[in-house]
């Protein structure tokens, strides 16, 4: 149909089998993100309405927030967006190894963000006495940031699925062995996630209690979670050294790209939430 198709040139943004030239998956993701805008718009408006009309006895957010920690996790999330962009770029150029590394990095940063949020939540509940049910501020704050956290968690799961898929062999007849490997991957990942989340929470806790300089004492206090995390990362790295030809590559770069759109969107929404929920309190 088209002269471009015959030339062998791969254009990642134009699919000649669709009416518009935009790949279906990309269009789908844009439409979904439009829907998600309304989703977060509703949540953020709910929060702002209750901030503008606080019932008597509402807590002062500034006495609860730890703006340093949240700024740090915001920075981390932005860095994960950078790695996601690098993963998409690598996949479009067919560099599978580099894609895998950058996907892992994105997952890692996403997990740090989640750990910061889990720490923040438990800190607010136990130290600052802000719960879901004792004020409308708590209700809207935890629901809004928690929903964003769910989006990040879903994104991390999606990244993991994509990472595992990157080992699927190109040759269909090669068949089953990779599945065992995929399952091992998944298990190692789950263990590593749990261990690293626990390690991250402890790290954050020590840093918040004793300052960032005290992080050095961490190893002596939490050897198991650290060791399991390290072992998990090494195991994943070893499993990742798979040199057989993967199905993964330029042809399905759109899968990574649409996942990237989702990830960037979640980051952008966080910037809005960070501004509306945290920063505006300090104006």
């Amino acid at each position, binding site marked *: 149909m088209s002269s471009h198709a015959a030339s062998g040139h791969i254009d990642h943004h134009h699919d000649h089998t669709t009416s518009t030239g935009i790949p279906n998956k990309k269009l789908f993701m844009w439409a979904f993100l439009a829907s998600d805008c309304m989703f977060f718009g509703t949540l953020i408006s709910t929060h702002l309405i209750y901030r503008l009309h606080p019932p008597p006895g509402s807590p002062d957010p500034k006495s609860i927030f730890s703006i340093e920690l949240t700024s740090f996790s915001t920075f981390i999330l932005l860095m994960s967006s950078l790695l996601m962009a690098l993963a998409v770029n690598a996949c479009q150029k067919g560099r599978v190894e580099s894609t895998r590394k950058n996907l892992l990095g994105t997952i890692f940063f996403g997990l740090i963000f989640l750990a910061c949020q889990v720490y923040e939540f438990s800190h607010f509940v136990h130290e600052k006495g802000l719960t879901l049910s004792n004020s409308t501020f708590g209700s809207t704050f935890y629901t809004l940031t928690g929903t964003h956290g769910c989006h990040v968690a879903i994104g991390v799961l999606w990244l993991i699925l994509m990472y595992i*898929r990157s080992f699927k062999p190109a040759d269909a007849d090669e068949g089953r062995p990779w599945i065992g490997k995929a399952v091992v991957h998944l298990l190692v990942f789950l263990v590593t996630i749990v261990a690293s989340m626990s390690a991250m929470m402890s790290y954050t806790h020590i840093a918040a209690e004793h300052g960032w300089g005290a992080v050095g004492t961490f190893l002596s206090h939490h050897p198991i979670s650290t060791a399991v995390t390290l072992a998990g990362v090494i195991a994943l790295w070893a499993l990742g050294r798979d040199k057989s030809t993967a199905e993964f590559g330029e042809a399905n770069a759109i899968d990574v790209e649409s996942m990237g759109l989702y990830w960037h969107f979640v980051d952008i929404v966080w910037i809005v939430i960070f501004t509306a929920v945290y920063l505006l309190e300090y104006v």
Partner: protein
Amino acid sequence: MDAAAQSQSLGHHAPVADRRPWYFTRPTAKTGLVSWLTTVDHKRIGLLYGISALIFFLIGGLEALLIRIQLAVPNNTFISHQFYNELFTMHATTMIFLAVMPLSAAFFNYIMPLQIGARDVAFPRLNGFAFWVFLSGAIILNVGWFVKSGAPDIGWFGYAPLTSLQYSTQFKGDASTDLWIMGLQVLGVSSVVGSLNFIVTIINMRAPGMTMMRLPVFTWMTLVTAFLIILSFPAITIALVELMMDRTFGTGFFEVSKGGLPILWQHLFWIFGHPEVYILILPAMGVISEVIPTFSRKPLFGYPIIVFSGATIGLLGFGVWSHHMFTTGMGTMATAAFALATMAIAVPTGVKMFNWIGTMWGGHIMTRTPMMFALGFLWMFMMGGFSGIMHSAAPADAQQQDSYFVVAHFHYVLIGGAVFALLAGIHYWFPLMFGRKVSEFWGKLSFWVIFVGFNVTFFPMHFLGLNGMPRRTAVYDGNMGWNSANLVATIGAFILAVGIGIYFVVILYTYFKGQKSGRDPWDGRTLEWAIAHPPAEHNFDTIPVVRARDPFFHEKHLAKDKPPAPPAEPHGIHMPSQSWFPIITALGLLVAALFYSYHHFTGAIAGGVLLFLGVYGWSHEGPGGYHIHLDEHSGDDSSHKAH
């Protein structure tokens, strides 16, 4: 054609590029139960939607009949007040979410891809998923009838604080409200997923030459509706999440004692709820815009105007939600602004009315059954529109709010409008779907009985409302002057039920024994009439090339030259493979939501695990696919035979 290709002529399917199965074998059966459970064919999914929607339409109608029996005479003790509350809640929820929306979705699924010359929707497995999720939501909503808690009893609007733990558990002590919350939430997933699929399909899967301004109007209205769904459902999703948090974790979103604002629920609900009204009526307008030109033997008058007015209705639909809240005391400015915006919607709607009338003007009108329903639509939708404009004036609305006048209005719009159009659509596309044609006598008889029954039921409600009879009230006193109008309405409801009964019997009879329609019985205008009746699995033997706005009619009657050769598909027609994962994933969602409704968190987590496994398998399974090789001489695409 070589011998190997010959052996794979139409009907023989050669799996290609399919991965070796690893969870379980990927189904290939084309008939039988498994083929329906694992189907990814948009036509089959459309039929599944249609059949479920019609069943729920009957259930919703039964609920309405019980309501009307209770109201037939004053001080009636036919049913308890509690049961009455359950009935009006479930009647509305069923009719909106389980009857009219899925019936529209049935046509979106079945007809829209055919109208744009596509082989399937953009994401066939996701399409199957949307249906099974819809069925899950329907089950969750209705499970209350069969368990101790009873069905939801909070109205389809679920106003706070009726839904708070304090009030909604006063009588029953458990889960009916949670069933309503989770049921709607699951239905929302289905609608949004389905709509995203339709949006991508319409924008990306059009046949060569099918520009946006050549799209059939039904497809255009599908697109507008899909956008309304993806942009309005998130509002109720969040509202339901917040309500769920209130009920499960003791948050204070809508709890006055904790500083919550019940009016916030109304805002969030109607930001969804008002666009929802257009989600129900725009597909109906699309059907009418197909039926009227076909049976007037004229192209649609003012096609661009009808497209733009549809889009305008969609846009304005988001700006008028607070006209449902004139009596909540929003203040003069807000009330005036929403009143004006609401009146503005009458303009594009009126424009559409004139377009349809203009189409019939000077046309050669054939009063076949679908056209009869379309004419009924014009008449009654206009009446519903007039009473709608009356509500948009805030002072008048202050009198009419929550009275039977409102009930009369929205039944004129939703039955006289949406349901009549969808009943017209069933008759109109029946020959295409099943190759059989409904008897004109019995079709018209059902139309007249439905038409008379409907008007006898709902016209008196205008007077009841203006005389002050409130909605949602199970009994009334005999001295209020409402007795005779109520009795007439109940008699009308039974006439309407008889008409609907005739309609269903006629449809079933036609399906099994009806007269064969032959191809293209209405001398159709759009692409869906170019293919076999009923359609083959692959829809089109060759994807048509579109050269005009009514492409099939153009090639049949108007074109002077032969149409250009359609692009060849040298490797055969590629079709997507069936899959178990859509139904497995939907089952996970059903289990999770159902257990969550009963606050049984272990069960909910088990459902979540099943959901995750479904997604995991789905992501590794790949789209698969196989090729259909057509025998050179079996190609009988009549769009190219008409010459």
